[in-house]
């Protein structure tokens, strides 16, 4: 294995490792535009030049993205020669660049700005008319291209070809006329197209959805996890004014590498929909009326408790959403199975199209968590499928829905009218919730903290990015309230970290994962890890 020194620091690397990657391992950042760890090497932007002291080359500097480390190699990344080489590259890249940073969405996270700041000149020596190119070209409904800002690094072209598997972009024309384009009458159709917006190191590719919404430096960026399918891609939530402004993928080698799908990226509008619940609702004289949240929690427990005392738990049905966090599902099970003794427990499955990359057919983000924790009808018990019939037959007479609805199933929805009582916890007023006796105002993934278990057993964190509307509360706190009402003598349990710890003790699959470790990376549940090792 070759040993080389970079800026005087020695490192031994696998044969074939490039200098830019070896530097990365040492924590040395070499500037790059065209190079990206998830794409093939193009070597066209030249900004990653370093000085090669040993072996002696004909020219002192060369690109580090395409330079394979060799034994005894000596590299300087920040010498005068290396800085000069990069400064020259910067001057060329900016010759025809419009320098429209004040109105450019990329400003603040632009690598042209970044490296100009490092090695750029304060004056342009170019006094001719700049070359003009295409502006505001729609590559798709969601992606806008600006040819004048483009530095032709071809990250987008390579992403479409190598990762999305659809070569829908090409460099057209030549020299200073070159631009990126789609074919005539075509647009980008890959469900992963919007990754090119993140990949673009400059302001050439922007998101139609996020354009001109906010300067990026005013966003609060919170690491979280996408809940649009069972993949659970790691994401960054960019929020401002207590509103989500954009979601972007966050690097996670175990789950989604650098990518996410367009659907997940754009699927957050419902968080700010007008039907959000900002207050608890309690049925009073046949009508739902706003109520104090603590009062509603007490009332909900009273309904469950009275029913179980009078009729026993066999007539009670519990629907627990596989969209809830591991902690919430665990407390929901503690309450329904542990306290009330409910055996009729189920989740509502959600399926759709999946592919062989990131998008899973399972659209519930936490199906595996729900099944590991044990949300499923016991042998002979009533599940969601038999729910409507069991209500008709008088076998089920009361129901508790945590984070879930049956709006998709007219028969089940109609069956709710025959129940003696219905408690619903949800973040918005569903048709199901309208039929409830008590509606507890929960929140969405963006307003709470917790963990979800993805399809491969990776456990990732949700973190609170924005404030919940009105008096809505994280579901875990509502569930903790129910448990506290049931077991007033015990210490309350509603902090995610404490619940996760309790979960690890109760469900062996989760033992060994430390909650605090999950802040920016994922931990894997034991069963899946064992299955993968087989």
């Amino acid at each position, binding site marked *: 294995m070759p040993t080389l020194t970079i800026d005087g620091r020695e490192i031994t690397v696998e044969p074939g490792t490039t200098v830019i990657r070896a530097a990365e391992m040492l924590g040395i950042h070499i500037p790059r535009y065209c190079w990206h760890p998830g794409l093939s090497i193009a070597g066209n932007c030249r900004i990653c030049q370093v000085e090669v002291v040993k072996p002696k080359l004909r020219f002192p500097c060369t690109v580090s993205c395409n330079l394979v480390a060799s034994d005894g190699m000596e590299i300087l990344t920040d010498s005068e020669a290396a800085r000069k080489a990069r400064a020259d590259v910067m001057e060329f890249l900016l010759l025809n660049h419009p320098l429209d940073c004040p109105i450019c969405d990329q400003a603040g996270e632009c690598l042209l700005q970044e490296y100009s700041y490092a090695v750029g000149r304060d004056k342009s020596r170019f006094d001719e008319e700049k070359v003009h190119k295409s502006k505001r070209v729609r590559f798709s409904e969601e992606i806008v291209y600006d040819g004048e800002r483009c530095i032709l690094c071809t990250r987008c072209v390579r992403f479409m070809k190598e990762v999305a598997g659809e070569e829908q972009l090409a460099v*057209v024309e030549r020299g200073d006329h070159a631009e990126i384009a789609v074919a005539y009458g075509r647009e980008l159709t890959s469900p992963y197209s919007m990754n090119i917006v993140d990949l673009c190191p400059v302001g050439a590719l922007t998101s139609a959805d996020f354009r001109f919404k906010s300067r990026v430096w005013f966003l609060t960026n919170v690491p979280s996890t996408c809940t649009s399918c069972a993949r659970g891609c790691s994401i960054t939530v960019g929020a401002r004014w207590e509103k989500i402004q954009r979601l972007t993928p966050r690097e996670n080698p175990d789950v989604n590498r650098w990518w996410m799908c367009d659907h997940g990226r754009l699927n957050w509008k419902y968080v700010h929909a007008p039907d959000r619940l900002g207050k608890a609702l309690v049925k009073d004289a046949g009508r739902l009326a706003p109520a104090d949240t603590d009062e509603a929690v007490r009332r909900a427990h009273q309904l469950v408790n009275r029913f179980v005392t009078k009729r026993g738990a066999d007539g009670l049905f519990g629907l627990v959403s596989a969209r809830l966090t591991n902690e919430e599902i665990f407390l929901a099970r503690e309450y329904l199975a542990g306290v009330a003794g409910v055996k009729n427990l189920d989740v509502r499955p959600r399926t759709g199209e999946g592919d062989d990359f990131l998008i899973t057919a399972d659209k519930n983000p936490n199906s595996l968590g729900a099944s590991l924790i044990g949300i499923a009808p016991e042998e002979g018990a009533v599940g969601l499928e038999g729910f409507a019939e069991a209500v008709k037959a008088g076998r089920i007479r009361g129901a508790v829905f945590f984070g879930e609805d049956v709006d998709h199933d007219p028969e089940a929805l109609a069956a709710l009218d025959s129940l003696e009582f219905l408690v619903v916890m949800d973040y918005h007023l569903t048709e199901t919730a309208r039929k409830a006796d008590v509606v507890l105002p929960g929140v969405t993934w963006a307003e709470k903290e917790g963990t979800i278990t993805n399809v491969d057993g990776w456990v990732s964190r949700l973190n609170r990015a924005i404030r919940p509307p009105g008096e809505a509360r994280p579901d875990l706190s509502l569930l903790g309230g129910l448990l506290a009402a049931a077991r007033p003598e015990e210490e309350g349990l509603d902090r995610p970290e404490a619940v996760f710890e309790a979960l690890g003790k109760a469900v062996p699959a989760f033992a060994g994962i430390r909650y605090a470790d999950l802040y920016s990376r994922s931990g894997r549940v034991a069963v899946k890890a064992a299955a993968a090792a087989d």
Partner: protein
Amino acid sequence: METKMGEANGAFPPEHLRERFDAIVARYPRRTAALIPILMAIQEEYRHIPREHIEGLAEYLGCTPAHVLGVITFYTMLSQRKRGRHHLYVCKTLSCHLRGAGEVLRALEEKLGIRADRGEVTPDGEFSLETAECLGLCEQAPCILADGIRFGDVTPETVGRIIDELKSRGA
């Protein structure tokens, strides 16, 4: 010999060219390798690359329309604008420039009544003009390349003869 001008209607390969294209493809280990030779054949046939053929060609060779467009726009000998039956490249690189290529170009433009920088074609469809980078005939600067024939030591006075010669040879 007058080539029959097939009309580009989008069906690919056009019936009268199928055999020729299949033969080109057969020369290469991968279908996509035939892209440039086939584009040149299309250019020869239609005097440009008709836009309607891009999708069909991509499908025929197993690549994407974006890839085909990238190749078409990269090479100057492939044109998306229809050229004249005789297309003249006037060299404008250093040797020719110093030896009066500018005057030669102006004389041609005047004689034919078309502009090179606008990609114009004479109304009868016979001639079009284009400036070119070095044609490799510096010792005979200024030079012109037309219909595959090199013309050296051209002067504004001799451009008329070149046009006559091209006309007499037909297309």
